[in-house]
């Protein structure tokens, strides 16, 4: 009952009459029955057992909505003030369960099927055979390798962004102009970037990038012809959009640094190199790690640029996992297999990020303790 911290309310319980409480319980019970009945009826109709007036599965959706509202109301009825508080978080939680948790679990189920969407047969259960196919799919493993490459490039983006942030943080006039100029790439959709730079500027015959390359001695510039050059080009496109993003995060961190520490270092006779290495950089470590991790999270989702510029080419060299699965969905119509690829990727990401976050936590703690 007695709360220890100042930032949260203490629960105060007003008396809730038993009548109110049972009314709440009836409400939830009845609507749950309604939801269950609707689901059962839909399933029975889909399997041809009974015929109701349902034309699609929407009644389940509506029943779920009714159930959610009833749950909220019953919380208030049964728990009084505590129910009012639960009402704040209930919508978001119910929404997330319906729209994230349920489809993801459904996805795991689909991954165990062999399902051609365009044939009339419908799904067969195929157990783990999709998983076995996955391990033999060289394109998929190539795409996974590409993800490692793209993620490693985040460090390069970080270095460039840090340099820009340092410059912008110094005594520079017209800072607002620069900030706006650097913000513009983030406003563009990846599709627009794909055309504007990937297909137009980097076009090998007429594009200015090609003209510049010819000027510098590269005779037949083709930015997307050979695997590693294509990867570098895609990375350039993505970096063009996201380096400003990292820079904004780092700039905010730099501007929040206490000035006295730097001044003390200067008074002690540190050169700017030493001041950076021993004072600024360690202080910026938490922000840096946050920025890099956020950037990696978004990088692992990279798909739009690859789909629109190279369609994964040449020969699957620039594929990201997402763009590869996109093509699997569109071309092969074995959606069970595609979903298996996606679920496997999800599991790998979770493992990778858990390890990364643990490392990050340890580094931040070491930096703070001055190790």
């Amino acid at each position, binding site marked *: 009952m007695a709360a220890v911290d100042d930032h*949260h309310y203490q629960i105060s319980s007003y008396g809730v009459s038993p009548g109110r409480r049972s009314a709440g319980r009836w409400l939830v019970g009845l609507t749950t029955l309604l939801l269950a009945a609707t689901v059962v009826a839909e399933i029975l109709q889909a399997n041809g057992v009974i015929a109701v007036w349902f034309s699609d599965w929407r009644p389940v959706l509506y029943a779920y909505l009714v159930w959610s509202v009833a749950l909220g109301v019953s919380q208030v009825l049964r728990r009084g003030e505590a129910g009012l508080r639960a009402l704040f978080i209930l*919508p978001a939680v119910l929404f997330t369960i319906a729209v994230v948790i349920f489809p993801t679990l459904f996805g795991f189920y689909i991954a165990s099927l062999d399902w051609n969407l365009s044939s009339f047969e419908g799904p067969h259960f195929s157990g783990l055979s999709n998983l076995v196919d996955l391990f033999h799919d060289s394109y998929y493993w190539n795409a996974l390798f590409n993800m490692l490459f793209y993620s490693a490039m985040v460090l390069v983006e970080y270095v460039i962004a840090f340099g820009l942030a340092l410059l912008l943080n110094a005594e520079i006039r017209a800072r607002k102009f620069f900030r706006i100029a650097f913000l513009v790439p983030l406003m563009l959709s990846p599709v627009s970037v794909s055309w504007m730079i990937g297909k137009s500027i980097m076009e090998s015959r007429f594009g200015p990038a090609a003209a510049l390359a010819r000027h510098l001695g590269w005779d037949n510039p083709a930015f997307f012809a050979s695997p590693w050059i294509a990867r570098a080009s895609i990375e350039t496109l993505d970096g063009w959009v996201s380096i400003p993003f990292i820079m904004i995060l780092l700039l905010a961190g730099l501007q929040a640094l206490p000035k006295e520490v730097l001044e003390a270092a200067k008074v002690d006779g540190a050169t700017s190199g030493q001041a950076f290495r021993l004072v600024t950089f360690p202080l910026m470590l938490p922000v840096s790690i946050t920025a890099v991790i956020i950037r990696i999270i978004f990088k692992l989702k990279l798909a739009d640029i690859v789909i629109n510029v190279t369609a994964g080419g040449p020969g699957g060299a620039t594929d990201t996992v997402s763009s590869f699965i996109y093509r699997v969905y569109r071309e092969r119509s074995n959606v069970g297999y595609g979903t298996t690829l996606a679920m496997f990727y999800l599991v790998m990401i979770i493992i990778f990020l858990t390890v990364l976050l643990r490392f990050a936590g340890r580094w931040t703690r070491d930096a703070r303790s001055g190790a």
Partner: protein
Amino acid sequence: MASDIAAPAHIASAIATDRTRTILWRVFAYGVLLFWAFVCLFPIYWTVTTSFKSAVDVTQGHVIPWVDFQPDWKGWRSLGLSPDTIFQTSTVRSEFLDRFVNSVITSFGASILALVLGCLAAYGLSRFRYKFAWMRNNSDILFFFISQLILPPVVLALPFLVLYKALALLDTRVGLIVLYTLTVLPIVIWIVRDQFNSIPIELDEAGLVDGLSVWGVFLRIILPLALPGLVAAFILSLVLCWNEYFFAALLTSSDAKTLPVMVASQTGSQGINWWSMAALSTAAIAPLVIVGIALERYIIKGLSTGAVK
């Protein structure tokens, strides 16, 4: 003494080298920043100028209008947006406006829904203590929401394809709105919760003492104070939803198609002439670029939430 006379000269020359070094440093700093600003803005400049070119200019790779080449309305004419065609009917333009309206509706709808859900949840997480299912405390619940950012769209793509088919929500704007809301909800919660945390709880308590209920305090006192954070979250989710391509391409065909999908489908076709493509791209990026320039302050505030701890 000799050293005393030598000392001021030494200091003077040290000051002079210092000043040159500062000037060199400034030149270097401005140079790098201007170079990067050029890198950021050149593609846009190139696209805009290309939309005013004709075939010869494109193949020759001309760069500066009125110096290298004569601007022409051809690209815009094919879109139906040049001065001479703007009052006539144009199928391309009406399709463009159709997709534009779709983008507006889905982006605004999703951002508003995410803002409502997110504000409520963020306020609850900021002020109360919850325990729910396997999540023992608020930071667990917060992690539950934020961790959805990790979900790659591919994972949800197929389940949603199947589910929307069953729910008859394919190719509808409502379907896209729901999907986009789930994409941006973690970000909204993150930003708005940060904003609420910076409002002292004494204000809540003052309202409660005055007899307002918990919801009254939320709506009348705290929400108006949190407005900057709300605006930042709203604009950021607007930008993210507007530019979304993956789900829109997968789940829409004719009715609910959004602008990025339209632009992308033009890119794919062979033999597209550059000037109309450039005009289309310019028209597609213009709204957000204007928003970005006008509301830069809020966007940066939203983006750098949590970066300063």
